[in-house]
């Protein structure tokens, strides 16, 4: 359409020019013939086919009777074919290039979108990595805080960790006592309801967690059993995670979360609570072990709970037998603090020399020493107790002759008459039926030491004692250790020196 329009327009222009110039184009060079120019223009615009048609049209309109018709035909058709061919070739190249550009543009956009998608994925992965690092840091913090605390501060540390790391507004820690749970620590409550302080195992969420030994949430709790659980007092449990003994798996306590922001009541929080409970279990177990191994005494209350847990587990048949030794030194409370520290240290050394440190779970309070022997039945416990009594008579009586009477008692989980855990706890901890053993008489000082003492030269006396010990390497290691300990810890305190004198004197007599 455009071609015919252009051709018609060109012819019209030429006709108009011819009219103006009287059809006299003689002054124009033949190569600049307006008809040739028209054909070339058509060739450039439309291609060789349209140019040939234009040439034929020009020839048809102007060629009849032309003196140089052959020349005109060659010139017009040649121009149409040559220029039109070149124009078509260039047009094909341009089209090809445009198609290539279009394909590349499509590829560019597609790759740009993929790149954006990858960038988004990368950002998400970095975000997840940051979250994972945060979680790892949180877990590390939980582990550090729970591992650092000692037994007295552990309950407080556990609830602090739950409140800070999970975001719990209200949470509690319960410890097992026989068949009930006792509130050890809570956080977020202005006042704890009385009925929530001690819970007997029943159908509530905490009991469910204790029985099944795994974390339970309110979502999993059967609706038909969702009855009074401190609900009226506001003590509603959302999550409960049992704290298990790291070795035996016995339940030591339960972590309870009572209030939590809705957005945090999710799977991550339950997993973190589970981890905290597991770490708390390890810490409790490790604290007991490390306390015994390092010579630190347990608190009486914790020891009592531990004993109850052992008894409960044993009564259910899930734990091996154990025994309990109790030693009471009534006169010790009347002695001065320096001397008391020496006695405590001596007792630890004696215990560790007889028992394996990892087997000892002991506490020391006021005038009573309690030792729990795990995995020890009645017969070996009796032998151990006899050894311990002999050692106490030999060692303790030597350097503290004025301790007076002391009471020694052995109880075993298999002993008759101690069927009920509570009864055994009462028996062992309170010493209702003590065995009384009197200590031996005071011993004599060696003459040279007595002389030095009479001259009020305790340093020389002490030095003499040291040399006496060194001259007799055949002494039993325990005794040697005991004496050395007291020699090294001794000061000018006359009582302490006297104790050393007695020990060395007795040792010398025994060796000679």
């Amino acid at each position: 359409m455009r071609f015919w329009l252009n051709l018609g327009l060109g012819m019209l222009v030429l006709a108009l020019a011819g009219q103006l110039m009287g059809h006299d184009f003689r002054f124009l060079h033949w190569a600049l013939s307006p008809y040739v120019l028209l054909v070339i223009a058509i060739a450039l615009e439309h291609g060789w086919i349209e140019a040939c048609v234009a040439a034929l049209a020009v020839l048809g309109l102007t060629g009849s009777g032309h003196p140089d018709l052959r020349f005109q035909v060659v010139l017009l058709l040649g121009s149409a074919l040559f220029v039109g061919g070149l124009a078509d070739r260039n047009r094909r190249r341009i089209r090809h290039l445009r198609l290539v550009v279009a394909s590349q543009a499509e590829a560019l956009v597609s790759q740009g979108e993929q790149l954006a998608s990858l960038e988004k994925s990368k950002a998400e992965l970095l975000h997840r990595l940051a979250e994972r690092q945060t979680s790892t840091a949180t877990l590390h913090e939980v582990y550090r805080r729970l591992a650092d605390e000692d037994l007295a501060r552990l309950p407080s540390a556990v609830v602090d960790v739950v409140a800070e790391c999970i975001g719990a507004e209200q949470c509690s820690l319960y410890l097992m006592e026989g068949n009930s749970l006792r509130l050890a620590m809570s956080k977020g409550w202005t006042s704890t309801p009385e009925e929530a302080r001690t819970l007997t195992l029943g159908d509530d969420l905490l009991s469910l967690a204790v029985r099944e030994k795994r974390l339970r949430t309110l979502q999993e709790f059967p609706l038909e059993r969702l009855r009074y659980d401190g609900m009226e007092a506001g003590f509603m449990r959302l999550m409960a995670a049992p704290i298990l003994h790291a070795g035996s798996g016995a339940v030591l306590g339960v972590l309870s979360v009572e209030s939590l922001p809705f957005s945090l009541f999710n799977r991550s929080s339950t997993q973190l609570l589970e981890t905290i409970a597991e770490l708390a279990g390890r810490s409790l177990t490790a604290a007991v072990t490390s306390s015994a191994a390092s010579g630190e005494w347990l608190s009486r209350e914790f020891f009592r709970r531990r004993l109850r847990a052992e008894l409960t587990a044993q009564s259910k048949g899930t734990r091996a037998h154990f025994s309990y030794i109790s030693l009471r030194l009534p006169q010790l409370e009347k002695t001065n603090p320096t001397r008391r520290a020496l006695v405590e240290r001596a007792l630890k050394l004696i215990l560790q020399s007889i028992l394996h440190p990892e087997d000892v779970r002991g506490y020391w309070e006021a005038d009573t020493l309690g030792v729990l022997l795990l995995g020890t039945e009645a017969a070996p416990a009796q032998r151990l107790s006899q050894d311990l009594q002999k050692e106490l008579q030999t060692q303790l009586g030597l350097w503290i002759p004025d301790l007076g009477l002391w009471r020694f008692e052995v109880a075993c989980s298999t002993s008759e008459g101690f069927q009920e855990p509570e009864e055994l706890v009462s028996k062992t901890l309170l010493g209702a039926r003590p065995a009384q053993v009197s200590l031996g008489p005071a011993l004599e000082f060696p003459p040279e030491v007595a002389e030095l003492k009479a001259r009020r030269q305790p340093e020389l006396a002490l030095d003499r004692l040291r040399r006496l010990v060194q001259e007799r390497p055949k002494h039993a290691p325990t005794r040697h250790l005991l004496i050395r300990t007291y020699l090294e810890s001794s000061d000018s305190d006359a009582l302490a020196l006297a104790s050393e004198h007695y020990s060395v004197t007795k040792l010398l007599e025994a060796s000679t």
Partner: protein
Amino acid sequence: MRVITWQGRLDAPVANRLLADLALLRGQRRVELELSGVTYMDAACFGVMMQLIRLVWTRNGEVVLRSPSPPVWEKLREGQLLEVVKTEVK
């Protein structure tokens, strides 16, 4: 000449419907694509537009993009087509 109007969110689910527009061209050598109402264009729909342009170019035709919206401008710039494709802004 044929005028085709694309508008709204042009993403992968819409691409198949846009492909149907190509079948309607039927040898058209001049196509005008109205793009002022496009709020989003993804690579799939951009590919359909490129197919349309290539189809017309193959016929020695011409495509005019009328009033491309900013998302379309962004894609044209990304594909370095601003100097290649004819655009008209009202």
